[in-house]
């Protein structure tokens, strides 16, 4: 890491607690001197199976600062049964439901809390639609730092219980994610909190690009043809594109022609709407209404950058409704044994729709990022129909049930 650089005007800053360009207010990103980074495929061979195996490409100077719960290097699951059902030949699920707090957010949270420690901050926090709350809280607990999370009041109860149990102070806002985000931003400045996706955001987003690194490594250093990314703020999608770019730049993969498609739920699809309507600007959604609450970000901070990245990569934007999300949860669980939450499975639901629209060739190597665990949102699944009938413990009752 050499500097922070403004995404708009390219002005550079030292790697401290900065996140906005003084010159133009553009967002700052971490930049590296790739010509001085000496990494080969073999460099990573004997390293621990977590995201810190790529530490040369993560923005932490001192390894003693690292706060690690083992996030990352999750299974890349060859999904032949689901592929057959959908009419594909090469489908993989990047199963990020099995991270330490059961969502991909452990990746950026691990990097951000590490950076907070390196910068000497005495407390951290985050606005969250749910998953980041737990990821931040767990890593803060591991680091021994107080943690304050700002959530919309109506997120899934399991996510509140989880974050609270890690010891975080839960600030439930009578409003949307955007309201929580605004308050957290003000609190960061007023109370000198490290807001992982606010004033530490340049470092935070770096954690998510490991989702691109791992897919390449797990495919034998060959990038996929097409990836489908659940999209809320757009930060994950932009980070994944950066990850593929960096591996190509460093010669770890031969070429990077990965198509990146954005998956959003109907009811909060500002990025997909811009893509489908041919716009560069993103029109915010004031009151998101969707089963996929983890993606209910009406005014996505990286929205326009995500739109640009999807277009440049040759990918698509597609959205699905609540019923399609429920069907995708059941489909993924019953064909592949992976239980995902609505916001995490939106990629699978969108894949099905893109295939129906003829936008994916049957022989493309497709990776769906599945980013959150179904146990976080049990209420998302229709409870009727899965409550078993209670029977007497007698062998004869089985004749009615086990029909073979």
């Amino acid at each position: 890491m050499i500097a922070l650089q403004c995404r708009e005007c390219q002005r550079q800053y030292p790697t401290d607690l900065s996140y906005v360009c003084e010159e133009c207010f553009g967002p700052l990103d971490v930049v590296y001197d790739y010509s001085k980074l000496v990494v080969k495929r073999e460099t990573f061979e004997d390293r621990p199976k977590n995201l810190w195996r790529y530490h040369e490409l993560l923005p932490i100077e001192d390894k003693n600062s690292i706060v690690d719960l083992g996030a990352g290097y999750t299974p890349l699951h060859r999904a032949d049964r689901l592929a057959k059902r959908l009419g594909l030949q090469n489908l993989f699920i990047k199963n990020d439901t099995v991270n330490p707090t059961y969502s991909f957010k452990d990746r950026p949270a691990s990097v951000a809390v590490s950076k907070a420690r390196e910068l000497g901050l005495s407390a951290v926090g985050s606005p969250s639609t749910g998953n980041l709350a737990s990821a931040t809280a767990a890593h803060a607990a591991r680091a021994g730092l107080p943690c304050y999370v700002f959530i919309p009041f109506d997120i899934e109860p399991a996510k509140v219980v989880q974050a609270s149990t890690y010891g975080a102070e839960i600030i439930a806002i009578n409003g949307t994610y955007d309201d929580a985000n605004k308050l957290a931003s003000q609190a960061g400045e007023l109370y000198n909190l490290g807001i992982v996706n606010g004033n530490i955001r340049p470092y935070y987003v770096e954690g998510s690009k490991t989702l691109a690194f791992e897919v390449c490594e797990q495919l034998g250093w060959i990038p996929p043809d097409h990836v489908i990314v659940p999209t809320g703020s757009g930060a994950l999608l932009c980070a994944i594109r950066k990850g593929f770019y960096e591996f190509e730049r460093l010669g770890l993969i031969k070429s990077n022609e990965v198509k990146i498609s954005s998956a959003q739920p109907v009811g909060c699809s500002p990025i997909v709407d811009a893509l489908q309507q041919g716009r560069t600007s993103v029109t915010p959604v004031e009151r998101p209404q969707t089963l996929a609450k983890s993606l209910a970000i009406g005014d996505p901070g990286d929205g326009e950058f995500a739109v640009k990245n999807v277009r440049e990569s040759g990918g698509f934007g597609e959205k699905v409704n609540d019923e399609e999300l429920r069907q995708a949860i059941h489909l993924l669980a019953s064909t592949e044994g992976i239980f995902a939450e609505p916001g995490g499975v939106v990629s699978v639901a969108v894949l099905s729709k893109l295939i129906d629209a003829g936008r994916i060739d049957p022989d493309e190597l497709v990776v769906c990022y599945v980013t959150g665990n179904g146990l976080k949102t049990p209420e998302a699944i229709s409870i009727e129909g899965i409550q078993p009938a209670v029977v007497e413990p007698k062998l004869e009752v089985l004749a009615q049930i086990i029909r073979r």
Partner: protein
Amino acid sequence: MSNVKVVIPAVMASATRGDRVIEISGTTVAEVVSALSARYGEPFQRRVLDAEGKPRRVLNLYVNGKNVKFLSDLETQLGDGDELMLLPAVSGG
């Protein structure tokens, strides 16, 4: 004209010569932004407005805590004692 309080976060105070709380007059967001541009000149204007005179995508404007994107953008009306706040448009879900 309404008397309005404008709140600027530390990371954006480069546009207002370090001023963080500013009393200024105007009946719409556009009028207040225009008055701020007159007071703080080009360094304010180029950071806050794009070439078409619209608020740049990298920041959000809030009137009494509500994003003007969900009100009437620059035409949002302001009354005496209202607060206009600027914040960077960043979020990470």
